[in-house]
């Protein structure tokens, strides 16, 4: 931009802005005369990727962690698409998602296991809460009861050994044939992983896992605001 040229605009009758725009018309500095970026003061501070102010010397990033999120939702068409679309659209790191009915007609519970930083978990909860069919959502406390069901099909070369391993992990044989044996396992994440490791030596043909589902312990509600049910009285919710 040749900023030094004089204002050559003719005087205009109707809409002249000649007293503001051009550097030639006033004493204000033209863009080329204004201090360049490196000539300006710049603050020392910094923010991290999550927009949190940080000490530039000891830059601390949030570690991601595994969290179980439980949501009480209205069981209406498309609710799962809304939740899964949100998770993928916002690039939330999700390990598993299970859904099933609750004691209240028309309500379902969605349990998600996510791997995110604390701000990321916060975002998932807040964005989920904005979905109209989501009644309530929150992270299930760390000591929650979580359990997953696994169907595991192994080669049946040594049925007795398979049976022994299965017993060791409280498994149940649900199908046994000349070629394969299918075992049902339930448990928390760690015990399932251990069991699968133990079965590997037989040759795992196929595996199907539901992903964990979870309930809070004791009288703590699993989803915020959820009122515990009693005998003959199903759980309810404020909404």
């Amino acid at each position, binding site marked *: 931009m040749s*900023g*030094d040229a004089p204002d050559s*605009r003719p005087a205009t009758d109707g*809409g002249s802005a000649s007293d503001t725009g051009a550097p030639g018309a006033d004493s204000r500095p033209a863009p080329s005369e204004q201090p360049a970026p490196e000539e*300006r003061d710049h*603050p*020392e501070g910094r923010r991290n990727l999550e*927009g949190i102010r940080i000490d530039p010397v000891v830059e601390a990033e949030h570690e991601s962690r595994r969290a179980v999120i439980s949501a009480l939702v209205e069981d209406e068409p498309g609710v799962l698409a809304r939740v899964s679309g949100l998770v993928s659209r916002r690039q939330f790191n999700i390990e598993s998602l299970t859904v099933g009915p609750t004691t209240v007609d028309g309500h379902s519970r969605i349990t998600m296991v996510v791997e995110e930083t604390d701000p990321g978990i916060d975002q998932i909860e807040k964005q989920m809460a904005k979905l109209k069919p989501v*009644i309530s959502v929150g992270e299930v406390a760390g000591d929650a009861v979580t359990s997953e069901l696994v169907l595991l099909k192994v080669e049946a070369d040594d049925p007795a050994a398979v049976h022994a391993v299965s017993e060791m992990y409280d498994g149940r044989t649900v199908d046994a044939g000349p070629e394969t044996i299918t075992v049902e396992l339930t448990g928390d994440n760690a015990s399932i992983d251990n069991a699968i490791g133990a079965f590997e030596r037989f040759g795992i043909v196929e595996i199907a896992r539901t992903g964990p589902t979870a309930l809070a312990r004791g009288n703590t509600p699993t989803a915020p605001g959820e009122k515990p049910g009693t005998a003959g009285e199903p759980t309810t919710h404020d909404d």
Partner: protein
Amino acid sequence: MSDTAAQPREDDAEDGDDPTAADADDPVDTDGPAAGSVSTGAESVVAALEAAGAQTAFGVQGGAIMPVYDALYDSSIRHVTMAHEQGASHAADAYGVVAGEPGLCLATSGPGATNLVTGIADADMDSDAMLALTGQVPTEFVGNDAFQETDTVGVTRPITKHNYFANGADSVGDTVGEAFELSRAGRPGPTLVDLPKDVTQAETDETPGPATPPAGTDPDPTADADAVEEAARAIEAAERPVCLFGGGVIKADASDAARTFARTYGIPVTTTMPGIGSFPEDDDLCLSWAGMHGTGYANMAITHTDCLIAVGTRFDDRLTGGIDTFAPEAEVVHVDIDPAEISKNVHADYPLIGDAGRVLDQLTAAVREAPDAEAWRERCAEWKETYPLTYATPDDEPLKPQFVVEAFDEATDDDTIVTTGVGQHQMWASQYWTYSEPRTWVSSHGLGTMGYGVPAAVGARVAADTMGEQDRDVVCFDGDGSFLMTMQELSVAVREDLDITIAVLNNEYIGMVRQWQDAFYEGRHMASDYTWMPEFDKLAEAFGALGLRVDDYDEVAPAVEEGLDYDGPAVIDFHVDPEENVLPMVPSGGANGKFATAEDQL
């Protein structure tokens, strides 16, 4: 997207085993819905809209939406037929921005609905209240890939606050009423109701009840009192406080509260682009808008502040630049109605969840003494002196686009509504026009939709006329590229005799791309050269509008005057300097405080 080919197909369907076939034998009820009584799903839809206060709809007819249009025949709602459904959604969006009411647009199924999508996404990104009603194939055909069938609910799910598939004539009116109210409840945004033809055609006598938003979607407007007190202490202690007023201030009609707060405590004000007009740009405290092409002084202030009072903004990347260098020494007070915006992009030290106006009033009451910011205000004033928005007008270069914007600003009143497309012209329209009132700046911010300007001018004009403000001017600044995308809506402006003036800042480039190619792609002008543009003045005449062409400075003022005086749509094709760049500029992801004032700094 009315397609006559649809009709034989549709008729066949209805003469067959369509459950609604019986309705076809009944004479159409031409009396329309009497107050409080309806006879079909479609009449219930219209009754719900009327009861919710809808006055205007923008749309395009078509097979699957015909029952609703038939019910509109006798309605008090004014329907403006648009040339293209995208125009309908932008016009409805702009109407809503100007009127402060949800905009309303209609389209048929399939291509009608998909053509609405850009405008719905635009409204979603800018949190504009809008209801879209789309026709759908009869319920029993859904999922069969029927003629003009699209999974509209699926397509629009990620770009609406919520969308609905109407599942019965008895409830469809209530659903539409709920969707209308939801669009403006809490943080505004678009909603959609997909209306299968059998639902709108079916008989019902269920009159829709009073419309309310769904439970839990209309949040408490008042922020937690303790949190307000804590924020107030931080503001009192600040040495370099800055307000950042976003679009939420305008949506909440909180401009007065914002002005009171900033002036009471002498806090300099920056705005976001959608926040333009929330605070008068000619006020001494105002530093105009911050961000990629914001003023140097606004960007200096938000970079050096130690207390950023951000209201109704979602900290878009075009505002923040690189997050690492955004207001890096500021404690952030963040006021927003949407809790999910708190600490989404920028950590909020003092989150205040509530309505912008209500929380600003709370803050005004809670702050006991103004922060000691005299030195800071002086520093801001110095930045204003040091980094003014200026441009040169040398003899040997063509007409400068900024001059055209200033000429229009000079020639019009403060209440003039400006609409724009997207690109360089949009930036000049926001930089070189001095905005002082809310709802006068109508643009596509978050989505950056080229082609928004002309249909938005139609919507804005209709809104102003509906409000009895026929004297307000509506000026659309458009680029040549943007204009070519939606100029068919000029036919609507001519048909409806809408008094709008369209200023095409024609640089025969898709200019912002050309500017980036020069800065970041070694000047390789791939697909940005638009020398093949038609003569817009002649094209305007062909539409029945006034068409003018301007090449030189001395033609500007007379053309501006003629365009504004013309009673109807006018198009002025300003042939401006193709080499002119938008400055200052913060390169994408860069530090706001390191904005470039010249090309060689990029």
